[in-house]
């Protein structure tokens, strides 16, 4: 954040000054970081209920006291959207939990979601005074964010934000992930007539079909969607823009601006022999089947038995979600195969820890080079090659190097390939004048999120390739402001 004056001003409000005096900084720093309440590991690996149970009020009050309300709040610089972190934590300390939620919502449309899924250990908590200066565990910013948001939701006093009177100008949002939801929230507040078009039958994007229930219960996302409905946002599901209707069709229906938040839903594979055998899925397909189509539920039409031994290739959040899902569906062996060591895994630290506790096997420094199928074309074995770590690559992580002659076979019943996704090409390819990168992402102006086609704005994974919920949400908000400026300018001209 270049300009911290806003935060400074808030910090010098009388109540904050007084609150700082109630406890010496030294005393605050001597307090231990609280631990999240969790379901028992064995139990939870057999159900789909949320693993983290949240903080009690007492716990939140104690943790909030640890925050020193620093003059130079480095945590804020660690947050991609610049949430006023000490601002909301100090509200918790004075027991104004609804007030805390309000501070969060100033910048974050989805605090209950971000409190659960942000990689805080790489962001705010990594820049916390405790981490940087004291070399102690940081303030549990993520847990507190979740606490405040959950408190508000459970209080029955969730405020529906005020919206300006409908100005009749139609704006289309394409994709109902965090980027699209955030954009629609702001646009409806500005007074636009907002419709969200979603290709799937569920609203919420990755929040629904990707991230599993045990990490992010659907109910939490549904509450946000319900609020948007109450604010006047319209949703059209099973509607693929570029197929069901083109941009020109929508323009003809009176839509004056578009926000594209279509995400990165095209799975990538490794292109190794045998990879198209039956029983080898992309994590996208696997998680979508489980999360949306209830494939694993035997009462449903399309139950899918995935087998006893499930190998998941990859080391990111998606891989962790897939492997932990596999365990919950009854796999006897749910195994992560990752070609670097555990330290290099891109997944959130908490996810890795939870997976380990739940009995997930980790085969680090292993990489598949071939899949072998039975006569029916169903995968039965994979050939794994052992790896060692070489010099650091440009990301600073040590490069995996294959060890010649180290290959061996491992029996598997199913494989989930979780090596990344690419932007869905449908929208970029349906618009000739839309500028894209060689990676298939849409090129936008960084300040307004406007693309090379004037009435089209974009954000989230379709612009960044792959990112995080909070960045997608931040983009959606930035784009909403960009669209607002663009449309006001247009109205003035006419």
């Amino acid at each position, binding site marked *: 954040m270049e300009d911290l004056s806003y935060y400074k001003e808030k910090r010098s409000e009388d109540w904050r000054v007084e609150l700082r005096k109630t406890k010496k900084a030294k005393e605050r720093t001597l307090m231990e970081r609280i631990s999240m309440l969790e379901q028992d590991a064995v139990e939870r690996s057999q159900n789909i209920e949320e693993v983290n149970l949240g903080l009690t009020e007492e716990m939140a009050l104690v943790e909030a006291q640890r925050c020193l309300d620093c003059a130079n709040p480095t945590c804020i610089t660690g947050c991609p959207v610049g949430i006023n972190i000490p601002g909301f934590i100090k509200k918790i300390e004075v027991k104004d939990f609804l007030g805390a939620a309000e501070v969060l919502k100033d910048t974050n449309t989805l605090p209950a979601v971000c409190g659960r899924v942000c990689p805080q250990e790489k962001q705010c908590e990594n820049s916390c005074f405790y981490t940087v200066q004291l070399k102690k565990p940081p303030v549990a910013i993520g847990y507190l964010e979740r606490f405040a948001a959950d408190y508000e939701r459970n209080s029955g006093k969730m405020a529906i934000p005020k919206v300006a009177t409908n100005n009749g100008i139609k704006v289309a949002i394409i994709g109902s992930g965090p980027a699209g939801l955030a954009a629609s929230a702001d646009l409806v507040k500005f007074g636009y007539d907002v419709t969200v078009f979603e290709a799937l039958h569920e609203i919420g994007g990755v929040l629904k079909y990707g991230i599993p229930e045990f990490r992010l219960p659907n109910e939490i996302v549904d509450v946000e969607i319900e609020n948007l409905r109450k604010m006047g946002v319209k949703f059209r599901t099973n509607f693929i823009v570029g197929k069901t209707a083109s941009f020109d069709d929508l323009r003809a229906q009176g839509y004056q601006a578009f926000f594209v938040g279509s995400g990165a839903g095209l799975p990538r594979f490794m292109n190794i*022999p045998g990879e198209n055998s039956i029983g080898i899925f992309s994590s996208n397909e696997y998680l979508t089947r489980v999360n949306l189509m209830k494939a694993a539920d035997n009462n449903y039409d399309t139950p899918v038995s995935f087998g006893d031994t499930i190998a998941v290739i990859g080391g990111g959040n998606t891989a962790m979600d897939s492997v932990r899902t596999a365990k919950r569906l009854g796999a006897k062996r749910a195994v992560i195969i990752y070609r670097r060591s555990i330290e290099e895994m891109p997944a959130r630290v908490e996810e890795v820890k939870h997976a380990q506790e739940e009995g997930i096997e980790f085969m680090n420094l292993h990489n598949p080079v071939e899949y072998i199928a039975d006569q029916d074309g169903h995968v039965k074995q994979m050939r794994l090659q052992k790896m060692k770590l070489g010099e650091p690559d440009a990301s600073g992580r040590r490069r995996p190097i294959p060890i010649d002659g180290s290959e061996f076979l491992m029996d598997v019943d199913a494989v989930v390939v979780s090596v990344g996704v690419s932007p869905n090409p449908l929208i970029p390819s349906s618009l000739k004048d839309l500028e894209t990168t060689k990676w298939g992402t849409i090129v936008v102006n960084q300040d307004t999120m406007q693309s090379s086609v004037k009435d089209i704005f974009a954000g989230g994974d379709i612009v960044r390739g792959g990112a995080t919920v909070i960045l997608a949400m931040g983009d959606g908000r930035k784009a909403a402001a960009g669209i607002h400026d663009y449309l006001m300018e247009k109205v003035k001209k006419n």
Partner: protein
Amino acid sequence: MVDLTTRYMGLSLKNPIIIASSGLTGNVESIKKLEANGAGAVVLKSIFEEEIIMEYDHMMNKMDQFESDYEYFDYYDYKIKEENVSKYLQLIKDAKAAVSIPVIASINCVSSHEWTYFAKKIEEAGADAIELNAFILPSDPERSSAENEKVYFDIVNTIKKEVKIPVAMKMSYYFSNLAQMIKKLSETELKGIVLFNRFYSPDFDIEELKVISSHIFSTQSDQVMPLRWISIMAEKVSCDLAATTGIHKGEDVIKMLLAGAKAVQVASTIYQNGAEYIQTMLKEIEEWMERHNYLNIDQFRAKLSQAKNENGAHYERVQFMRYFGEKESTL
């Protein structure tokens, strides 16, 4: 008119000059020009594993810290590989559509697993043959020569399981028992062996104290290595031999044919003299054949190979001994 045709790894070439794998054969326009100027065949630029790693690093360098989402880029090398592979397959298809001379694809392999899958796709894309640019610099003091040598055989065996089109191997001379290595490789399913690849070598800038690249292009005198070894091996191998490195003029082509090569591969001289120079070289060969009353290449091929030569010891002489000792000092 003399007949310049030759058969190399089962392919019919209108003449023995193949344009070696290099930037010259990296795009269709250039390949068309090479054909128009008389090239007998082309070996496409190799597809390299190393390039994929370099491109990956380049991309990672461009990302700033906040954007860096390791999950997205964690396996991006596979994506880059897929893109490079599909570009390469397109090059094969385009080249095949644009020219009628044989198009040989080239894969740079450093292990037996990496590219075998890809070999099949190359075949499907229509390449007439595959050349394996297989090389492991034997620089690891912990690895035995047997271990290093095994990799070459593994590569051939795995690739031949995947494809039916002829496969050649372009090799180096870094073997402790070169003759046996060449002979044994020729007894695999390889249809051709190319002697010898020329590699990038480091050089030093002694003023700047920096490591720089040594000469990229060969000189004519570099041809002594392929000349000797093709002469020695020509009648002892069970597959075709092609010569490369230091072949700059028509006369050099003639020498390699006399040694027993079925074809030659040239790069440096074409870089330096242009595609038109193929015509000059071909003319030189024709004139020489006419002068010597040869109607076709088979009439003189391998005439100077070791096996056909009474003075076989010449080929194996390595010490200068008396012959050069008699060269008096001019100091």
